[in-house]
């Protein structure tokens, strides 16, 4: 973007998301499989094929298997699992963990995510017995892929990088971009352009849009 705009960073890799982070909001919109442990009246309209009907006060029945967004699952979850219990999405289960440990570089983490690390880290909130294995797997997967990301970000200058980033998750793409910025800034300095005043991206984007949005 531009020099003076600093977006709120993601906190998803740590213990808590950042409330104001747009990245974290997008990440927590992704869904995971849950099971209701108690009937939930008057919400049957959201899951019409499962609704108990009028006699149950339009409830989502107990024992229903649903896909809920992370934010909702987090909000309804407690350690006594009174309202719902949570299942691990397949890519964090043992089968896929074995694939990652064999060769982390072959996997398309964008298709699997796209917030593979962030979502996986926040999954730890649900006290699965596999938590230790999940966190180990997340870490080792990143360690396995990091070198290639760093190398490619430092060697792709002035070229189309879409093939390089296609299979990276969002966090890895951010890392790649940071690497590219470092490379571009250095090249700019080497060419003696570091003192050249440039147009502001922020201004250009907004003035271009003058009336096109109104027509949308």
């Amino acid at each position, binding site marked *: 973007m531009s020099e003076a705009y600093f977006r709120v960073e993601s906190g998803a890799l740590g213990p808590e998301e950042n409330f*104001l982070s*747009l990245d974290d*909001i997008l990440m927590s919109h992704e869904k995971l499989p849950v099971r209701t442990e*108690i009937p939930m009246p008057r919400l049957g309209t959201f899951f019409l094929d499962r609704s108990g009907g009028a006699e149950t006060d339009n409830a989502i029945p107990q024992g229903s298997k649903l896909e809920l967004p992370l*934010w*909702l699952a987090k909000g*309804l979850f407690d350690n006594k699992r009174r309202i719902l219990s949570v299942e691990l999405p397949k890519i964090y289960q043992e089968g896929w963990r074995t694939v990652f440990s064999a060769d982390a570089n072959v996997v398309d983490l964008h298709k699997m995510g796209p917030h593979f690390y962030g979502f996986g880290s926040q999954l730890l909130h649900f006290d699965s017995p596999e938590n230790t294995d999940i966190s180990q797997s997340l870490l080792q997967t990143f360690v396995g892929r990091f070198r290639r990301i760093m190398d490619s970000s430092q060697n792709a200058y002035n070229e189309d990088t879409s093939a390089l980033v296609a299979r990276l998750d969002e966090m890895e793409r951010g890392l790649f971009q940071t690497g590219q910025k470092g490379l571009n800034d250095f090249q700019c300095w080497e060419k003696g352009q570091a003192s*050249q005043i440039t147009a502001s991206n*922020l*201004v250009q984007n907004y003035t271009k849009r003058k009336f096109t949005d109104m027509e949308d």
Partner: protein
Amino acid sequence: MFCERAMELVRELHRVDQEDGLRQVLEEMKALYEQNQSDVNEAKSGGRSDLIPTIKFRHCSLLRNQRCTVAYLYDRLLRIRALRWECGSVLPSALRFHMSAEEMEWFNHYKKSLATYMRSLGGDEGLDITQDMKPPKSLYIEVRCLKDYGEFEVDDGTSVLLKKNSQHFLPRWKCEQLIRQGILEHVLS
């Protein structure tokens, strides 16, 4: 599911006109709140404790809508703040058009705080820290005009005509804003 409109707000941040979206999110929040109020009363006085998970569901949705809205508005403020540093203290009308009255007021407050701070630096004259964002190499620079701009006053009342494709040798500090706004181009020799 609730909060779909709020997610659209967040996803479409680059679209500057979102008043409708905001209003719809607030409407959904009002509906959720009222439904919960009524269910809470029923749970308490009508003995319907089975409504508690439902109430919690709606409450989570309310919090989510609140989070999306606040994050959206905050991100806009971060961009507006960046405009002071990249555009200068006078915003082009094309940009002002997309800001709400409250955002304009916020921008003016920010401008004032920044100006007060800058006056307190560097002794009596103050120091304009929004200038020279890139290390300057000379007092005068070569610029090419990218768009028709009109008369531009330089020093001692003399002025130049900034016509598209004209080139000039001008004081750096006078040109910085116009270069950032995309009207002039800094030509390196």
